[in-house]
């Protein structure tokens, strides 16, 4: 792997950058591998990286039906935080945040992890109760999350309006300082480059169309638009299309797929220092390093595989943004897009072995899996390599829905009474 550094950039600059080589190869698929990963998003590429680096599995391939990072990884609003309520979630997401903190150096790729702080606004007495519960639980779990008064929240993020005149006044906020954002493409590219350097084949434009199994039901390989590929282990990391891929092995997943939208404004000079989330009025906003306001909208009410959400959904989000930040009313939407997210009944992911020997699945990240990318990939690689879950992902089984051992983060955010 060609090392990246200020010095290499300078040297290349002197020679017109003619010496840079491809960051990853574009290999033809081999007939067989030791393991296959379906889906070259951040989670899939990261899984390959950790399989190669930590488990010595280098004869492996990542398959994607399109271009790597072109799924939700390249479409998300990149909010990273770990202040989840339940112990299981806090352990998983905080594992990821710890990896984020050194990821640029580990990968020798600037993924621009920017711990600028995630501020979650409380607008009602009920919000305060819920946030306090999170803050206490987080503290005992060793996860940073602190309560700010409305004035402190405004000092941290000056564009916030805190007057009582608002329809939903800000009465306080929970702040996770270690939370923030990262550059989504760089995460996919950094993992791809580092995995490729260890011999992992990343095969784009290669859709999996069937999963082959032997008489005993165990996985033997996959059928793809680029031919048959054999492998004793297959990990499915296909986000919004997980149900479709898992059905190829005869498994029905407890997932529903919905369009989720995001949008950016035209770029402006820095005005917005951190990430702000308001669950009560459905607004999520940060400012990218390029200067665009990055705004997340909600999911559509109906399931769909079209990567396009309803206009009323993004409009509703902008209503909320304009209400919270009335000076942004004259800012303009530059680009709006959608992705397909896979949602579980308890809004927590599934990172697990399946009832089919050799078949593993990492899915159900719904609207919030980017933040988990390195952590999820790390424990999923462990699970695939050792054929047993890592301590951290052990609770995130499929069977929990059958057994009722839910990790219900959505419920934890509760409802207004």
């Amino acid at each position, binding site marked *: 792997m060609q090392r990246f550094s200020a010095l290499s950039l300078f040297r290349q600059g002197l020679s017109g950058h003619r010496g840079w080589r491809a960051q990853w190869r574009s290999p033809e698929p081999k007939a067989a591998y030791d393991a296959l990963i379906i889906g070259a998003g951040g989670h899939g590429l990261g899984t390959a990286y950790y399989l190669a680096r930590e488990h010595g599995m280098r004869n492996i391939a990542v398959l994607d039906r399109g271009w790597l990072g072109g799924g939700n990884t390249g479409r998300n609003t990149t909010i990273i935080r770990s202040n989840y309520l339940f112990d299981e979630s806090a352990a998983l997401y905080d594992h990821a945040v710890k990896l984020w903190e050194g990821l640029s150096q580990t990968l020798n790729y600037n993924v621009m992890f920017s711990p600028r702080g995630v501020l979650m606004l409380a607008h009602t007495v009920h919000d305060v109760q819920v946030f306090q519960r999170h803050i206490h639980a987080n503290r005992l779990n060793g996860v940073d999350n602190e309560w700010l008064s409305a004035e402190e929240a405004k000092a941290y993020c000056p564009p916030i309006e805190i007057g009582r005149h608002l329809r939903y006044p800000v009465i306080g906020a929970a702040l996770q300082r270690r939370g923030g954002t990262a550059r989504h493409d760089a995460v996919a590219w950094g993992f791809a480059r580092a995995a490729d350097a260890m011999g992992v084949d990343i095969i784009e434009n290669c859709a999996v169309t069937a999963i082959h199994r032997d008489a005993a039901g165990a996985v033997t390989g996959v059928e793809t638009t680029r031919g048959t590929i054999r492998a004793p282990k297959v990990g499915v990391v296909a986000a919004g299309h997980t149900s479709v891929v898992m059905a190829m092995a005869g498994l029905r997943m407890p997932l529903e797929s919905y369009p989720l939208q995001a949008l950016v404004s035209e770029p402006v*000079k820095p005005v917005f220092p951190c990430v702000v989330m308001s669950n009560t009025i459905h607004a999520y906003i940060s400012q990218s390093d390029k200067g665009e306001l990055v705004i997340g909208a909600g999911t559509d009410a109906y399931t769909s595989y079209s990567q396009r959400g309803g206009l009323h959904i993004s409009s509703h989000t902008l209503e909320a943004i304009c209400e919270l930040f009335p000076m942004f009313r004259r800012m303009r939407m530059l680009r709006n897009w959608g992705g397909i997210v896979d949602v579980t009944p308890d809004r927590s992911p599934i990172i697990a072995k399946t009832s089919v020997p050799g078949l593993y699945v990492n899915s159900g990240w719904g609207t919030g899996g980017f933040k988990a990318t390195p952590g999820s990939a790390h424990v999923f690689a462990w699970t695939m390599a050792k054929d047993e879950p890592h301590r951290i992902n052990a609770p995130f089984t499929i069977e929990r829905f059958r057994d009722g051992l839910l990790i219900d983060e959505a419920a934890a955010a509760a409802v207004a009474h």
Partner: protein
Amino acid sequence: MSEAFRTRDGGRIDRTRPRSFRFDGVGYQGLAGDTLASALLANGVHLVGRSFKYHRPRGVVAAGSDEPNALVGVWRDEASYAPNLRATQVELYEGLRAESQNRSPSLRFDRGAMAGLLAPFLPAGFYYKTFLWPRRAWARFWEPRIRAMAGLGRAPTLPDRDRYAQTYAHCDVLVVGGGPAGIAAALAAAAGHARVILCDEQAELGGSLLAETEATIDGMAAQAWLAEALARLAREPRVRVLPRTTGFGYFAHNFVGLAERLTDHLAEPDPQAPRERLWQVRAREVVLATGALERPLVFPENDRPGIMLADAARTYLRRYGVKPGSRAVVATAHDGAYRAALDLHRAGVAVAAVADLRPDPEGPLVEAARAAGIAIRPATAIAGTKGRLRVRSARLVRIGAEGEAGGGASAGETVGCDLLLMSGGFTPSVHLFSQSRGQLAFDPVSAAFLPARPAERCRSAGACRGTFGLAAALIEGYAAGEAASAAAGRGGAPGLGFAVTGAIDTRGGTLGATPHGRDAARVKAFVDFQNDVTAKDVKLAVREGFRSIEHIKRYTTTGMATDQGKSSNMNALAIAAVALGRPLPEVGLTTFRMPYTPVSFGAFAGFARGELFDPLRRTPIDPWAEAAGAVFEEVGQWRRARYFPREGEDMHQAVGREVRAVRQGVGIFDGSTLGKIEVVGPDAAEFLNRMYVNAWSKLAPGRCRYGVMLREDGFVMDDGVVGRMAPDRFHVTTTTGGAARVLATMEDYLQTEWADLDVWLTSTSEQWAVIALQGPRAREVLAPLVAGADIGREAFPHMSVRACRVAGVEARLFRVSFSGELGFEVNVPADYGRAVWEAILRAGRGFGITPYGTETMHVLRAEKGYIIVGQETDGTATPDDVGLSGLIGRTKKDFVGARSLRRAAMAAPDRKQLVGLLTEDPREVLQEGAQIVANPQTPAPVPMLGHVTSAYHSPTLERSIALAMVRGGRARIGEVLFVPMPGRVVKVSLCDPVFFDREGVRLDG
């Protein structure tokens, strides 16, 4: 200043109406009908902005919404500051103020231009390769600096006062684009009596006709024909013409979003009038007539002020009467640029040379140029330009037979100029077609992607379909309008022929970088002007292994600027295709996304602001509470009185007084926000049996019962009292926040799962005002007001309901209690709510009746261990967890959630269960949300046993109390546990959750 570059006559500006304006603090004059760009050019101002990355000086390139460079901030006052507006779209009004962006201290001397010196070390994606060490330096040091350099304009700092409107419309035929094709389409559809909407993003409709001065249509000068056609459309009652209206988004089922700008062009807009209006149009048929955009040529240093698109120059001259320079060089691969050269020449601008990339340009326009004495250089490219703040010269080099350019930095001929026009041909605007998911196909003849297979009921016509000639566009537009009208079920008017003279068809074009004979790794030939992406950046991306066009776009940021690649995408694609060694159509386009051009957030938000953002719901008794000095809280969408402080009381004191009043005398409470659903029909009881855990069949009319409803996963979703008014009629109540959700869930089951049940659901939440009367003396107060029912102790026991009259008003009277005291809930039609409330207050005066709010209600119910769904439960609690398993109908086979309750984990002994907590110090009120642990000394992660759900000071017990959900809690009653707080630990003992009157004797008072 004088308008030195204004022509003597011609154009569509109004020479009798001068307009003064300021740009970067300097005063200028323009004319009504100018854009800011044309007015600046009339004053000889080309330098208008700085580029994103290298802060290079930039001028006006285009004349429309495709402008990448001339972005300005415009304001009347700070609250109306709008950044990043294209000067080519800003209409001039008297007193307009605008400023350039992304420069400091000034446009001419910009510190940021230092970045240009470092450019050799800042290629595409440089930031992924560096800033890696030391570990924290990125976030602490580099990122803030990069952020400060990036961004274009500045965001407004004050709230926008302007209003934004929204409207919905249906039509038979929506025509997007008001050039010749679009106008012809609208004429045809109008002739077929279709309901038509025709919109165009510009201030005037007409598109290319607005700069057309030679052609005639049907014997009329083109612009006279235009005027007549528009007048005809204006007379049609079924036709709506919307200027300044951009079709920005094309969604499923012919749903199209239009953004109309209403006041930005006015000197003194009416403050009451909306600034913009968002149209959401559902059209039977759509005709796209969105035209085509000229492509820049990608040659070295093609970005200096004074270098502009040939057709834009012609537009400035013909439409605005502005000469964009005094001495021009024209670089082209398309015939159209000759028309620009001829126009300039006739207007007195010296045309030094036309450099045509093609070896043997020919055709009538080429001949005309030659005849006019314009020097034409075939097979000639631009190898570079000079000039810091304005182009000063261009270097012309010959292209050899192999397509290579004469080498060396000094080869070729240097031609002095202050204007360099370029034309790489035209790219059809297929944005909306593609947004609608229509499929494009590459047409090798025109070297363009054209609409192939539509996904919606839509037709493309004119230049956006690759049909460029004026006559052909008119005919095609008319045919499309006619077909659309017929397809929409209206008439199709017989096709009109259009007799066109004087319009010369043009051809030609090139894609990608042009030859220049210099070191390709060093020259800056810009592809995307605004984002400073050069041809070598695109090649670098390919060299680094980015093979998908989406990757190339993301790595280089080409096409991601505020123009979304309108002028750059095809050139970038062509350069990438060459570098990849693959045919261009195989490489393919990136996805077109809405909006076509940027749309204000305000337009999307529309009327939804302040009160209208989410209208606050108020009960009929709310005005009384306000007058009584209540402190309110917001619960869901409602505002509710929280407590009624008397002079000098704080919340604690007020709540203490209110609680004591209820326990000792009588209190009155506004419960109108409760959700109410009338469930009626022969199968109503069966329906409720399935929806609730409780059994309803045996509930006698006149009785009521506390019901609990689960989600499919077995967890408590909502609760409320249900009264049976008649065998086939139930009065269902829900929590305040759950009303809509419960109704939607019920409807969902009724319509999708149990369509066989004969049941109707009606939301009656707002029909009934609910007045709760609680306390040992409640009956004494109420009895004299009740007619038509005996509410005596035996006749009307706890959990009864009667239809009767209260204070002369038809009522449904419940005997229920959420306080643990004798209690009634009076339901009367909402309009009578306040009158009845006041009547009861009067009746209660002698009993010391005390109004109380939600805070007191909470304390009263907590003293009794009654749960609040959403506070004690959080979506992970089963009925048993909160001590309600007794409600489950034993004989019922099934209900929603029943199967889930049978799962092993639902019966696990260590589930969190509802308990009471008492602190050691009776004054210590726990914090709601605080966690409970067995051993506070454990290091993180500390195993947590549960959390505090409710905590209050109890005036009745004169000490603090709390409810909590604790693992295996019921078995731990009596144990001591700990609540760790920052810096200290609170000791608590677990107790039964019912703190007061455990036997419930007071209910029977």
